């Protein structure tokens, strides 16, 4: 007969995950119900015909399309900056760093991980102020700056998950490559990366989620309530989390509040789509590597 403590643990484990699912469903359905009245094409494009807006032929004044587009570009640019550096640093720590360099780098990563996002935003702002007073008087907060600061924010997580995914691989990976005459890099590229890709993906997903939702950083580095579609990396931009924040704190009627909820639903959907995209990409790579 199984011990009561065993059963208790099993029940607690089941309960915890069930609680999580119930909580998530409750949250999603609440947001969806509150958002329902505002979920229509006008939410996205206001008075502008959708096709014209999507093809960038006419500006959108009322809808959240510019914010959706802004967040999408922000996520893509910041992950494009952070992912290669994060994975590269993770590989360095596992495979190449001498003990001392590793200790110093790990310490730096930990410190970076402890920097609150609002402080990261302040760094960005301070950089612009510095540039304006020195050799770039025309410098201003913009999408590129915001993306750079967000990249710094998500970098430690990426480095750590890459490092853990690679160093957590079974021992068979350690001697097999060398015994077949692989160089260190071949060993990493052809044996360890395929084995660790799923773990690394989870770090990328967290980075995408963080980049999509962070408000504090962009608040100080270039987001505005009304900028229209972002046209370049040095432009001010709109973003979904900031729009949610503005709608939630300054709504004047029920419609605007519903729009805030709708905006939240759109942000969640966008994040989910990006997650699916990243997962699909990882599966494709894994299948390609293992054939």
């Amino acid at each position, binding site marked *: 007969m199984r011990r009561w403590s065993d059963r208790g643990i099993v029940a607690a484990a089941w309960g915890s995950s069930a609680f999580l699912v119930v909580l998530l469903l409750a949250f999603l359905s609440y947001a969806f119900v509150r958002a329902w009245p505002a979920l229509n094409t006008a939410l996205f494009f206001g008075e502008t015909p959708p096709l014209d807006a999507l093809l960038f032929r006419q500006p959108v004044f009322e809808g959240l399309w510019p914010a959706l587009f802004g967040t999408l570009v922000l996520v893509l640019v910041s992950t494009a900056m952070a992912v290669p550096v994060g994975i590269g640093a993770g590989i360095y720590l596992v495979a190449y760093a001498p003990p001392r360099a590793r200790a110093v780098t790990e310490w730096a990563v930990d410190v970076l991980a402890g920097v609150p996002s609002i402080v990261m935003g302040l760094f960005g702002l301070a950089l612009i102020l510095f540039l304006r007073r020195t050799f770039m008087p025309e410098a201003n907060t913009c999408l590129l700056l915001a993306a750079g600061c967000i990249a710094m924010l998500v970098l430690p997580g990426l480095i750590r998950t890459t490092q853990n995914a690679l160093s957590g691989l079974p021992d*068979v990976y350690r*001697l*097999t490559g*060398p015994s077949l*005459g*692989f160089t260190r890099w*071949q060993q990493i590229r052809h044996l360890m990366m395929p*084995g660790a890709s799923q773990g690394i993906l989870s770090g990328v997903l967290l980075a995408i989620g963080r980049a999509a939702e962070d408000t504090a950083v962009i608040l100080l580095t270039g987001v505005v309530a009304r900028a229209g579609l972002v046209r370049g990396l040095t432009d001010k931009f709109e973003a979904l989390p900031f729009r949610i924040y503005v709608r939630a704190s300054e709504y004047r009627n029920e419609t605007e509040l519903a729009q805030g909820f709708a905006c939240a639903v759109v942000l969640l959907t966008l994040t989910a789509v990006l997650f699916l995209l990243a997962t699909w990409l990882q599966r494709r790579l894994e299948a390609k590597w*293992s*054939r």
Partner: protein
Amino acid sequence: MEPLVKTRDLCVRFGAQEVLQGVNATFRSGEISFLIGPSGAGKTTFLRAINRLNEEFPDCVTTGQVGLRLEEGWVNVYDRAVDTATLRRRAAMVFQTPNVLPFSIRKNIALPLRLTQGLAADAIAERVEEALQQAELFDEVKHRMDEPALNLSGGQQQRLCLARALALRPNVLLLDEPTASLDFRATRKIEALLRHLSERYAIIAVSHSLGQTSRLADRCLVFNEGRIREEISGEQLHDAGMLRRLADELF
């Protein structure tokens, strides 16, 4: 047969721990040599000293010489000029537990050929088939070459590892307890295979089984505390009394 591998005063230590203390031995082509002895006697370290795999571990210091005879003559494998990729191709290794990679059967053999020898696709295909034939695995897997190698049974996986080593066209095969994780039937299959392969390669194998040693070995080196204590060959290998004495001494 001419000697193929020679060690002189080979010492290996990891940090402060001396694992090998001056080992002198010679191995010839067409001969199976077994290394036996209690755990911690230095058998595996000796094997890994030949292809320099000990260097993958921290704090490893090797002194003395390991000579390997190649087409161009004798080389000291610890010479700076020796490229480890080439060395490990010439002295190929099979491990205790089958270490197939989480790839297809084909890719397990093809990947090292592509990466370390830069062979073209058709040359690789030829070598893959040849190696699988040699390891007597080809007929079992020829219709499912693109399936994951991890779906194979333990014995098949170990023969795949052997095929992967043979595909490198080595001069020496280093086998670290190649049947330790296999059942009786798979063990016998591998043993028959080794007997067959020993005509073409110098085989150096670590084993914990005296039975296996007596069935397969042309000679047997008894390791203890980092040194070779005894060498047994010929009729002595089949002498039951001799084996019983060894078993009492070693285990």
